[in-house]
């Protein structure tokens, strides 16, 4: 039924794709975070000029499948002559950067929602106390609000990390040989989709389980100092799970 020899032969070929999967996931998460932080502040702002566009961005990105976003950036932008002749073409020409941009913008929307939620959970009194002590708005955020919000956001962000690792498999649709791309190439050589995709699935599973275990450790470490915050974090995660 299950051809173990095919699986054993496929394994090293599939491992060659793991490096790319990892690089994609890390860069997507960094790019997403850089955009997500200002986006989260805009989302929580009182001004409609900040709140409106930020909410609209999150709303639109969350409503469109990520596969279409990848196709839009890769095939869609490649269609226009003015982009092909622009200075940005070396970036949009490369499927690697197209995936980073498409999935990074996608991850930014989800991450912004997580951070905005965590920022709202930090008690307002802390902000007022810090300002009364003479800290500037920026200092208050950096020294007090962000560290607390980060702990609150971590459990929900853990989810986002796992989802991003899995979303990188979309890179295989635009010629990249990530773990899924390597698996599809292996299938076209062996005609054994069952064994090969099962092996690839097992590798993804090992990656995500290890990541999740590491993040759980980190969470525990951070929560010892402040159990009240950890309790809120669990509530936040429950909320995120219900939303997912």
């Amino acid at each position, binding site marked *: 039924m299950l051809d173990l020899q095919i699986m054993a032969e496929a394994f090293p070929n599939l491992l060659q794709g793991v490096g790319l999967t990892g690089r994609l996931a890390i860069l997507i998460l960094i790019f997403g975070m850089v955009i997500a932080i200002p986006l989260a502040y805009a989302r929580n702002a009182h001004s409609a000029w900040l709140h409106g566009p930020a909410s609209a961005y999150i709303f639109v990105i969350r409503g469109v499948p990520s596969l279409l976003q990848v196709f839009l950036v890769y*095939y869609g932008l*490649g269609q226009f002559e003015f982009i092909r002749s622009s200075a940005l073409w070396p970036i949009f020409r490369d*499927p690697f950067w197209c995936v980073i941009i498409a999935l990074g913008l996608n991850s930014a929307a989800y991450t912004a929602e997580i951070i905005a939620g965590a920022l709202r959970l930090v008690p307002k009194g802390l902000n007022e106390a810090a300002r009364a002590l003479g800290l500037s708005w920026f200092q208050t955020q950096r020294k007090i609000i962000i560290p607390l919000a980060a702990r609150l956001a971590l459990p929900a962000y853990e989810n986002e990390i796992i989802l991003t690792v899995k979303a990188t498999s979309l890179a295989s649709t635009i*010629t990249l040989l990530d773990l899924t791309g390597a698996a599809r190439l292996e299938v076209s050589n062996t*005609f054994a989709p069952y064994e090969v995709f099962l092996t690839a699935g097992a590798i993804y599973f090992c990656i995500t389980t290890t990541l999740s275990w590491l993040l759980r450790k980190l969470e525990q470490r951070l929560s010892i100092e402040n159990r009240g915050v950890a309790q809120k974090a669990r509530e936040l995660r429950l909320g995120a799970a219900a939303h997912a």
Partner: protein
Amino acid sequence: MINKHKFTTILVCAAFSSVFAGASQAKDLRIATEGTYAPWSFVDAGGKLTGWDVDIANALCEAMKAKCTIMAQEWDGIIPGLNARKYDLIVASMGVTEKRKQQVAFSKKYKNTASQFVGKKDAPADTSPDALKGKRIGVQRGSIQDAYLTATYPKSEIVRYDKTTDVELDLIAGRVDLLLANKVTSMLGFLKRPEAASFALVGPEYTGGLLGEGNAIALRKDDAKLLEEVNAAIDTLIANGTYDSITRKYFDFKLM
């Protein structure tokens, strides 16, 4: 409530068993083709699956007096899908190669085939492996051209796509320098399009070896009786002129 559940269960079971029954009855055939490979098989403006392969498949069914369902299937899963009994025949201009013969049985040849590079009109005519060193060549993953390039052009960067139409998009966008595909497909599909005005066939035709011994219809290895029927039906279509009249619908030259 319970009755309603029972009824649903029976319906589901009936649907399943009819699917399995369909696979075992010789006269009720399911045929896979690709559907994104004009002019061989493509979806027309009305959303209908059409093309040379689709017409040939329908004519074969008529000759075999079988009731057929033709479906579109992604190329890189088309052979595993056949062996998983999702359909009984592949009529999709599939090249006969040694590697595929290990997986499936092939009918007699129903079409000759040649491959040729497509590139910019002013591209140099030399398409030898040394001349294309460092060039990016686009190809459909799992195609005969993919096998040929992988073995013969180690110094070029081979970029593999799900569909030939995706390679064509990236050739226009300039992400690949050349594409290697079936010559007739490029000539009548891609090169007729206004977007492809600055592109042309480049270099010589390639045939044989890893590029296969022409195209044939693929079946499961244990379907010996069906193979006989298909071979007889191909002979009938060629003898009674159906094969040529279908070909004339699409091309002004003969395919075999």
